[in-house]
């Protein structure tokens, strides 16, 4: 693989990674959001695999495979299950307006403003990460702003979306952004840390899934706005 092909492929994967985060903000159907998140996991694994090929490190390829399995396979699956366990089956096949649990009906910030914010956050990420790129300018570190942009978009999703599942996706976007930052900056953190982090993320998603089910049992829905028992 020549250097120019490597650079182009890396930029392509990073572009897809960022685009997936923006599309998450654009979509409202929760199951579609989860699928886009899975695609982002594929892009993340591709970034790791490209770095592994470029540096001739087999270990990195194995890590890429593991990350792909976790973030494009296991986590989306868990979230889809959280989505389907509580949703009653439709008895009428006719069209009716879908106001059920499966849509992000009332985000705090509407879709157009969200996309605009995503653009602003990306600009912010480029501004913030200038010292990071200057430290060691390579094709990989030049893509670092993408990672930070996804972190910021993930935080934005977490704050503005009002469904439990959408918040989960926001948290995972944040986490994907951090992982890609680690890969682009230093070809990933040491293996033991990577393993621990992946395990923690998996468990956190399991916990959130179980809490979603409990929330549905206690509140009759998964809207975060219903959570107003505790306040000062």
């Amino acid at each position, binding site marked *: 693989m020549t250097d120019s092909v490597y650079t182009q492929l890396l930029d392509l994967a990073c572009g897809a990674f960022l685009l997936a985060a923006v599309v998450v903000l654009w979509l409202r159907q929760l199951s579609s959001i989860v699928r886009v998140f899975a695609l982002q996991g594929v892009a993340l694994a591709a970034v790791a695999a490209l770095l592994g090929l470029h540096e001739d490190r087999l270990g990195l390829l194995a890590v890429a495979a593991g990350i792909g399995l976790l973030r494009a396979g296991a986590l989306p699956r868990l979230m889809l299950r959280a989505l389907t*366990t509580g949703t009653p089956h439709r008895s009428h096949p006719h069209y009716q307006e879908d106001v059920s649990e499966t849509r992000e009906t009332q985000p705090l910030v509407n879709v157009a403003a969200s996309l605009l914010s995503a653009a602003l956050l990306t600009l912010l990420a480029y501004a913030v990460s200038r010292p990071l790129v200057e*430290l060691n300018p390579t094709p990989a570190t030049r893509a670092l702003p993408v990672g930070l942009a996804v972190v910021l978009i993930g935080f934005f999703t977490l704050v503005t979306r009002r469904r439990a599942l959408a918040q989960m996706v*926001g948290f995972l976007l944040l986490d994907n*952004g951090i992982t890609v930052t*680690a890969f682009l900056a230093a070809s990933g953190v040491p293996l033991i*840390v990577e393993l621990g982090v992946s395990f923690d993320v998996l468990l*956190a998603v399991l*916990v959130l899934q179980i809490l979603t089910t*409990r929330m549905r049992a*206690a509140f009759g829905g998964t809207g975060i706005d219903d959570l107003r028992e505790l306040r000062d």
Partner: protein
Amino acid sequence: MTHATTALLLTAPIVVPLATSAAYAASGLRDAKARAAGAAALGHRTPRQRGAAAPVATLVLRPGHGPATYGTTPAETADGPSYGGPGARAWPGTRPGGSPGGPGTGSDGIAGPDTGPGAPAWSRGRPAAPAGTGTGAGPAGRARPGRGPRTGAPGPVPRPLTGRLGLVSPAAILTCGAALACTVPDSGPVTAYGRLLRADALTVWMLLTVGAVACLACAANPAHLAHERTDEPAARRYHLLVHAFLAAMSAAVLAANLGVLWVAIEATTIVTAFLVGHRRTRASVEAAWKYVVICSAGIALAFLGTVLLYYAARQAGIPEAYALDWQTLAARADRLDPSVTRLATGLVVLGFGAKAGLAPLHAWLPDAHSQAPAPVSALMSGVLLSVAFAGLLRYKVIADAALGAGFTRTLLAGVAVVTLALAAALLLAQRDCKRMLAYSSMEHMSLIALGTAAGSPLALSAVLLHMAGHGLAKTVAFCASGHIARLCGTTRIGRIRGLLAHSPCLGTAFAAAVVALLGLPPFGLFASELGIARAGFLSGPRWALAAALVLMLAAFAALAARTARMLLGPPPGEDDEAEPVPLGADAGAPLVAGLAACAALGVTTGPLTRLLSEAGEIIGGH
């Protein structure tokens, strides 16, 4: 010390709690089998029993199946023993210590309509076994928990593990901490497993704090569970999670690698999520959700900071295996790129600050601390906040060496003043007793941050003393608040009156704990606050300290006035013949021990003085 001894001392604080946790899990699996077999043999078809026994197993092995058992009926959650709910109003009539009776009190899945008449008696009577009903849970009982009593039990219903098993892991942490405290100040830091685990004076101090607070909280567990009428599987799950929580905290304290430190801190969030949501009421589910989301997202920012630090270290020529090793980083911090380190430090302060209850990501704290069971609140408030802050201290050393002391000083002082202002404002308007204590934790954490901002060795020693003193006093206060909640049926400050007349022992313990938290002598917090103030005016950001003193005055007034309102006055109810409610020895011993330890710290640090000053040197000596 030989290498093997060191390895043992560094491993035991993590492994023993994990083993205890596993013992509870294993006994749950066995009980589920035994009960299923027993039920089949007796001809009682009790599917709900089995369903209720399952979560321990499912939680560990196949968590995805948990929801099937959790999502039973809304009625179950509504019936839970919520402090404010109507189900809890019935409590004032019952005597603490007595077995709560009354038909139809099935707050758990076990006492379902299809259970035989014998089962509810078991489900309520059995967990009430206090620490005293020993069934030989000595060292042998740890390896094979409860096997002896089970085979000897007449019926198919197995006996629960006793409360004494719960004390094994805190005792192990405390013992290892004490053993290390004897050697580390003389012979320097020790490492094990190729620098995966490391103990220096700071580690040892934190280990002692964790062990002491955990002893108190675990000693309070059996009494708490007995009064909460927790069914046996839920009690076992509770113990399992508490011990896993202790293991995670020990790992966070002992980790030499900053990445592993982060993993351990995040693990505490995951483990405590179900402890916060233990009661499954609407309020506790909400608190657990907020807790997991805010803490996970906040701590993720700290991981981003760690990643950036790793990047800077790699670019500074530190090899991959040592680029996250704290000792290496601290020694070579001057070679790190300043602008990258600055960004990383900002993110780390934000992230670990979230876990330590500092602004701006502090919103989870009052909810989680007020909803968790009282001993868990004590652990979370008493040590988890400090453990997270100790992680922050490690990063501070690196940041100070790379950037000079000014950056972290400004950052921490700003965060501390904002947190203190928030805590004081919310304390003034507080109407709930446990939330009041939670905001008081925020107040104390911001003081700790302020002392860290001052940065001299004296200030850091005072900070560490403050962590220990606050941990002990807050544990007593939270455990006492749990007893108060049961006694009065509420945690609303407005509904609690005349506690001193109603239950003199409990009232005195709570009053003493609040006096300690207010920073009055003879308790440890008086000495440490004095130290922080002195060091702050000598070296630190004086503007922040001046602002903090004014805000602390407001917090002091609020806390004192609210507590006085709860303690003084005539006891509730019109019945004059009501005699004072005694506090049992089981419930009272941890409170007295905690207060005594806190007072002892205020008088002298005794043999720990050297350890404390050395720990202060590690962080503040650069």
